[in-house]
């Protein structure tokens, strides 16, 4: 095999890696963007919920014996657990604060992320946890050009579009979604046509956080589940949301694609400094379009 073909193979396989990373980034940041767009809360604790999703996945998976069954149960139950936690947070704290300034909300959610971090330490301790890849996803599949793709990555590549479609249906086809689009722009008027906006906000918040939890579960088999995984992710998610256009979930999709691919291809181009590529991409995008690629709801 000549070097050209080899390089091509390498690039292609990095693209697959990047796309599966994109899936995780998209799922988490679309939830964050949804909350930002409708409730106007820049939720730093979103990353914590992602981390908690991963830790919950570990516990649930363990509880069910750690095998394939454990993974599927985790995929089902951990996001629900995160959703319940977020509902408590919303009803207990956020619902009283929607009218506050953004800086105040930012500080509050930052405080919350610290509290969540400590809670995780209390409940799960400080050591690494790992969640096994389920049996069915062991092994590789060779698709194009003889590149072996881990089955789990392929699974992620399927989950991404499924989540995107479900989210599209939620936002565009359900009454709740339509109401939340209207409330994103004029919440007072939505209230003045008989809608209990507070309830709608609670529902949207829970949906957004559920996505954070889902992202956490999905990432769990591919990484060490550990304290601090919330920090990197929240940074990335914020950049993706800003790049895509605040509050625009399709912007989050595009942003995640750019970020994920820049990450994986950057490593190929310049292995020692691969980490700077996604950030460079953000800078370039924002220099060209300071308000983000798609229409911001702000």
């Amino acid at each position: 095999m000549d070097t050209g073909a080899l390089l091509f193979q390498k690039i292609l396989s990095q693209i697959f890696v990047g796309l599966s990373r994109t899936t995780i980034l998209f799922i988490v940041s679309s939830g964050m963007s949804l909350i930002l767009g409708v409730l106007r809360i820049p939720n730093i604790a979103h990353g914590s919920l992602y981390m908690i999703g991963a830790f919950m996945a570990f516990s649930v998976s363990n509880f069910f014996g750690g095998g394939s069954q454990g993974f599927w149960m985790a995929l089902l139950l951990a996001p629900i657990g995160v959703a319940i936690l977020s509902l408590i947070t919303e009803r207990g704290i956020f619902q009283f604060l929607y009218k506050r300034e953004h800086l105040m909300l930012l500080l509050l959610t930052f405080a919350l992320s610290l509290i969540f971090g400590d809670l995780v330490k209390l409940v799960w301790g400080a050591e690494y946890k790992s969640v096994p890849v389920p049996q069915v996803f062991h092994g590789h599949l060779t698709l194009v050009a003889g590149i072996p793709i881990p089955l789990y990555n392929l699974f992620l590549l399927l989950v991404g579009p499924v989540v995107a479609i479900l989210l599209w249906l939620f936002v565009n086809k359900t009454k709740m979604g339509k109401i939340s689009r209207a409330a994103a722009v004029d919440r007072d008027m939505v209230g003045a046509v008989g809608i209990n906006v507070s309830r709608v906000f609670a529902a949207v918040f829970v949906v957004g956080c559920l996505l954070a939890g889902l992202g956490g579960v999905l990432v769990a088999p591919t990484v060490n589940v550990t304290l601090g995984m919330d920090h990197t992710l929240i940074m990335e998610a914020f950049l993706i949301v800003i790049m895509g256009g605040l509050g625009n979930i399709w912007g989050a999709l595009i942003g995640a694609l750019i970020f994920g691919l820049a990450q994986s291809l950057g490593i190929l181009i310049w292995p020692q400094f691969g980490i700077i590529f996604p950030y460079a991409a953000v800078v370039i995008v924002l220099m060209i379009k300071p308000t983000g690629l798609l229409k911001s709801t702000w």
Partner: protein
Amino acid sequence: MTFLELTKVNTFYGLSHILFDVSLSVNKGEIVGLLGRNGAGKSTTMKSIMALVPPRSGFIRFKGQDIKGKDPYLLFRTGIGYVPDDRRVFADLSVDDNLEIVYRRNGDWTKEKVYQLFPPLAEIKDRRAGHLSGGEQQMLTIGRALMGSPELLLLDEPTEGLAPLIVKALENQILQLKSMGISILLSEQNVKSALKLVDRVYVIDNGRIRFEGTVKDLETNEEIKKRYLMV
């Protein structure tokens, strides 16, 4: 029992006192005009009733119930429809969805019935509300309020900025609503248009009610007309 009754309502925007002891009433089946110049306090009165700017003191009763302090969405659910002066259609949603998402109190009003009252809307069902003309937006905001089958409509300067032909159509539609038994509080600067529709009038200026009476009373009161209405 009066249908809607405001007693000595005082409303503020922050520190600025806007409404001073505003008292007015609307009886069942009536169209009552609230006339006044720019900045007189018409919209603030409407917003006070709808609790969008909750009054600081005074009483508001609707169907015999004290409604002060209730959230706007609950007021809508007790039968008050609000049509704001700046229209505020849900710009990102289609015309149909603007009607669809409204809370329905009962089955009286349906989208079909709204489209019957405003036939032009039926033809642009799928268009984004943000892309409508002023007249179309006005029909939509009224239709939106009607979806909740209101017993009382607060219409804030519905004819403002519309072409004469459209104003004419709108006047007819407002009279149709009255004939269906809906009570209406109608704010207007356009005195001529308002007087064709209303049963009684209040004149507001500087946040105070300056006159109250029948259309005839107002028409013969040159002093009030000159001082507060510029006609």
